């Protein structure tokens, strides 16, 4: 009985043939709905901060150098490739690529930094009034994340607002 089952097993193995994939010698295409790392297009980005406000990993940092310059930094190290940033971006500046070969010996290699010019109205000196969908998702006020240490500064809205947002919890960052 057990011999018979062994023979059966051997037959199954023989029928399957060789299944080992030749990767990395040969490329291995991804499935159609695969999400790799997001790629930021600096030419399209308007710096609304919607991606940073909606990223579940707090992975996209914003540092407002002055009123006209906003630095957007995608750190890359804790990205879950969820695609929420690409979904929320009003300008479609983020594409979820199929790039998965991101292994590296220096973690800074996966980062992307974009310096953006934030236009102000020439007449009144204030920012443009946003249409409503943008209004919903944009980053309100300024943010001063710690770019040198890839650290998200929690509750930086409170830095400018006198009243804290309702669901803000103060967390000691590392």
């Amino acid at each position, binding site marked *: 009985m057990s011999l018979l089952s062994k023979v059966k097993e051997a037959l199954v193995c023989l029928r399957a043939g060789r299944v*080992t994939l030749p990767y990395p010698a040969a490329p291995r295409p991804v499935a159609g709905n695969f999400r790799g790392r997001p790629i930021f297009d600096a030419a399209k980005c308007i710096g609304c901060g919607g991606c940073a406000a909606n990223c579940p*990993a707090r992975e996209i940092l914003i540092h407002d150098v002055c009123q006209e310059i906003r630095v957007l930094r995608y750190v890359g190290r*804790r990205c879950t490739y969820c695609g929420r940033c690409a979904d929320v971006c009003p300008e479609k500046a983020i594409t979820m690529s199929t790039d998965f070969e991101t292994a590296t010996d220096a973690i800074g290699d996966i980062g992307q930094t974009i310096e953006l010019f934030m236009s102000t109205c020439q007449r009144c000196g204030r920012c443009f009034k946003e249409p409503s969908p943008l209004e919903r998702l944009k980053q309100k006020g300024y943010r001063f994340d710690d770019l040198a240490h890839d650290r998200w500064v929690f509750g930086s809205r409170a830095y400018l607002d006198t009243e804290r947002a309702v669901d803000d919890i103060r967390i000691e960052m590392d």
Partner: protein
Amino acid sequence: MLKDLCRRMFGRSLWVYHANSGGCNGCDIEVLNVLTPYYDVERFGIKLVGSPRHADVMLCQGAAMRSTARALRRAYEAIPEPKLVFAIGSCACGGGIWHDSYSVIGPVEKIVPVNYYIPGCPPRPEAIIYGVAVAVGLVDKKTAPVQFKQAEFPIPRYHPSDLKSDGEVVVYEKLDRV
């Protein structure tokens, strides 16, 4: 130097010890997937061992937690020199989406020195093989930091001192780009 060392010491056989310090098990499944006949990393001499004392490489999954950090450190210290540490998955590379939770210390590099990072949540089995191939020098890494700088301001900056009254109209004199 590290690469040369890897090629010399680990080129033929790389025994790996698999340490999960608080991941969701997603990365563990992918690591085990890498050991199946489909991906078959024993082609490269990679073998999973049960004790850190037999291992050359530690595969870390999951962020460093308050409760597991000490055990992770001890496992690292038990591996004989020379040793490599791979951080597999976004949790190990950067703390993942739980990087600011109360029980999470952060990326595993806060506890043990990490040599290679394989981001992804979880990384594909191919991505893990790619990371190993980068480490043993079979392929070159493809990533490089991307930086975009604003070379010049697209519009001129107006300043009240540059405005001059010319009878009825106000003339703006300076129109050079800032």
